[in-house]
């Protein structure tokens, strides 16, 4: 299987009052195309730090990230921004839609970044919005006028508009209730089934079941990897396998 990301000896440290905190320690991993990769771990284990280091949003202290065959670790901030617009999509826990933009514009603002034709991008944005169950009547509304679950699905549409090589989702259901959270997971699963590669950070076992490959982070290291196979609703055997893996990891 073709990998999208490969890390070599990835380290990340923070200085806190002069004391170095090593959040990631010599992480070597690979993220594969079309996978729905889940990064799990306890709170403070370094999951989000790893996600943002992989995506080029944050810089590692040491080590290398090779993304689609390109080393991104030494790129300048602006080059990283250009890289992200071409290859990455992001779904945040706090959603982070632009309050002053309508639903449609929130999707277009990412889509138009690559100088594509306005009509094409608009058509695509509308199509994706429909796919995430955002009705046309909501397209002109502002983020403060829609629910959290709807906003997060708009966030997913925004992440997908440029057909990124990889979508990074940082606890996308963390700020939602279970019903709306499920809708968001359904949307992500649907896109993954259509071939979209996704890396998702979560500490929720229900969310983790959507992935086919689980990376467990413990004390800044990859403590274990579990291949679950493709998501099948209500597959108890698969659930059992995940539970056992997590149990082994000390979850």
């Amino acid at each position, binding site marked *: 299987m073709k990998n999208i990301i490969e890390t070599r000896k990835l380290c990340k440290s923070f200085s806190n009052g002069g004391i170095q905190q090593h959040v990631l320690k010599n992480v070597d991993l690979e993220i594969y195309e079309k996978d729905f990769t889940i990064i799990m771990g306890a709170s403070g284990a370094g999951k*989000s730090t790893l996600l*943002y280091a992989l995506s080029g*949003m*944050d810089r590692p202290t040491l080590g290398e990230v090779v993304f689609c065959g390109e080393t991104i670790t030494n790129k300048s*901030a*602006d080059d990283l*921004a*250009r*890289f*992200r*617009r*071409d290859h*990455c999509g*992001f779904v*945040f826990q*706090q959603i*982070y*839609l*632009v*309050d*002053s*933009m*309508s639903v*449609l*514009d929130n999707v*277009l*603002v*990412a889509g*138009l*970044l690559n*100088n594509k034709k*306005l009509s094409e991008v*608009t058509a695509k*944005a509308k199509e994706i919005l429909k796919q995430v169950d955002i009705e046309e009547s909501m397209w*002109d509304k*502002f983020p*403060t*006028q829609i629910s959290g679950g709807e906003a997060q699905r708009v966030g997913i549409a*925004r992440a997908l508009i440029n057909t990124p090589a990889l979508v990074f989702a*940082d606890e996308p259901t963390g700020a939602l209730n279970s019903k709306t959270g499920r809708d968001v997971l359904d949307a992500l699963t649907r896109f993954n089934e259509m071939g979209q590669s996704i890396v998702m950070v979560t500490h929720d076992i229900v969310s983790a079941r959507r992935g086919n490959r689980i990376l467990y982070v413990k004390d800044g290291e990859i403590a274990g990897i579990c291949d679950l196979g493709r998501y099948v609703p209500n597959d108890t055997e698969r659930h059992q396998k995940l539970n056992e893996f997590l149990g082994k990891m000390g979850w």
Partner: protein
Amino acid sequence: MNKILILTKSNLRKNRGTVAGLFILVVILSMLISSALLMFFDAYPSMERTAKHLNSGDGYFFLTGDLSEYDDTKLEELLSENMTDWQSRRLLDYPDVSVHYGKGSVNPGLLISDSEAFYTEKDKTEIVDEDPSVTGKTVYLPYQFYTGGGYQIGDDFSIILGGRDHTFRVKGFHNTTWFGCSNQSYYELIVDDDTYEALMEADKDTHEAVLTVFDFKEGVKSGEFMIKLSNTALASNPGLSFCFKLLDKALFSRTFVSLIMAVSFLVMTTVLLGVVALMLGSSIGNYIRENMKMIGALKAIGYVSMDIRASLLFTFGLLALTGSVIGVVLGYASMPLMSKIVISQMGIPYTPGFSPMVILITVCAVTAFILLITLLATIRIRKVEPILALREGLESHNFRKNLVPLSKAPFGLNISLSLKMLTTNLSQNVIIFFVTGLLVFVCVVSLMMFDNFNLHPNIGLLTIEYGAGVLSVDQDAKEEALDFLEEREDVSNIRRILNLPLNYKDQDTLQIYIVDDGAKINNQDICYDGRFPKYDNEIAVSGRFASEYGYVIGDEIEMVYGDEHYDYIISGLIQTCNNFGREGMMTEEGAERLLDLEYLPVYYWFDLPEGSDKDDCEEVFTAAKAELGEHIQSTINVYTTMEGGMELFKSVAGLMLGLMGVVSAAVITLIFYLLLKSLLYRRRKEYGIYKALGFTSFDLMIQTALSFMPVMILSVIIFSVVSYYLANPYMSMMLFAFGLMKSTFTIPISGVILTGVIMVLFAFMMALLMSSRIRKIEAYRMLVAE
């Protein structure tokens, strides 16, 4: 009090940048106010102080012309009834002498006296600077020749007196109240005793004058008395010329530049007051938004609104107090530059003095103003509910309109997002719109003054008439001189204009221009209402005089000269900045109703072809001298007069334009600093989102800077047009007190456009520079680590 101090300390620490920006605005504001006040309270009264110091009296009059039958005792009775003290002395009077001054020349009357002038009790003449080693044919010049004329001790000083060339060496400079400034029509020169004797011997019959300086008794109506005195003198001998001036007019004519500068500074100050009010209001609004949580928390633990408001009042009060004190200090520091211009007109030694009044007014006014704005802007703190504030005033519903939908935007993404930002930053853009508009207005006015004084000198508003030159001859050569001028191919539009003081009843005096044909006057703009007089029963009077005495066109007005008087019909109103706005115009036939022009010299004004210069004019005079010889009384080369006479106005206009340029640049910089600082803080998360999506810092900087440009451009366009139409009425309003009724300065359209373009480009550069803080916003820190 302690709780307020704690909050104040926190405010200062948290809002260092905002406080620093506002502080600079307050410093500039205070500097302008204190400079204006120093002009009013220190520079302007310095002339009065000098007059007292020199014991200059309440006024002077001097008699010239046929003094053969003049007897000092004739006026003595009249004088002793009305004056407490007076002193007469004899000297020589040479009208309209061309004197090299600055880069050109001026044509004042010269009063020549000997060293006795230094020993008078009244109207003392004080030596400011001298070099006793300079000997021979020497002259003491009025101090203005040093401050504005460019003369140094030891320089040669060449003039023509009574048709003869004289070259003196400058021995020193003296200080005199009555005859020390080009705006006073006369200069007094003190020459060495031998030369004075020689001149007196040669020109006693034609140029001797009697100068009397006096103090009025209390209760004497000065204007009326002087007219009575003038009429008595002229009635006793029609061959006499009578000229007088009272102290207030003399002081005004030497100080109006400091008044104009003071008024201009105050106008700039009002503009800046508006800017400071807008910026302070906006900054406090931003402070409340940015610190909503803190305000909520403070209220939750028991602080009342007034505690929080008091801390802000204390913060900005402190800022105003220190800023205004520093502004006053800078105002004093800038005075050497200002006073250089002021004394070039006043012509007296002047050192800015310490004025507690200036400090007190500036500091109190600025601090009170800032406190008032703060008090008003912080009212909304009262409405902050702790619970809502702790949720950062979260809006659950927002029904804004999407004015720039990206799906329909015809422009590129950056421009579309800029427009979007524009619609969401309306309050900031409103501030930019009005502040830019105010700056455009003052820049256009400064540019207009600069263009009309420095680049394309337009003396139409400063003098009654302009042309190429004036040839003055005695009556014997009246026809010969006219023939000479008419025969020359280069000379055109020959007209006679004589300038003479005539009295309005026994109440006032008007300087009257007696013209042979009003239609030949080049400066047709001076008659701003009605028309020039055509018939012998008509007169045009200055608008300021007419409004003061309630006259309108068509009214009859009684004019008096000696024993003669006549009621003229007012045919038009003219505007003039000279003689306190008291001038008029009539035809030669009209003047003949009061006096016999046969006694007076003839002044021929003429024009030369376009593109001619002072050398061409000088060539006409050289030829005239060859043909008319001693019949020539005086010549005025208007080209050189313009160069010399405009120097002062050029300095003032240059200073104003420079100052406005600096103030505009500073204000634009500060505005963008304050607005963008707040904008970037409020929108830091949004910028984080954009960066996460793949926008580069430069994309966002361009978007941000561009978002201010539509309003900036709109403001520049609208206010350029408004300024184009309002600049002249505004100047009329400003200069009404100086006699200007209808300003017709040319407004350089290309200059206005260029100013607008420069302003927009500068603003864009500043906005781009100030938004470069976006580089420091990291998507990860903004969205994840926070």
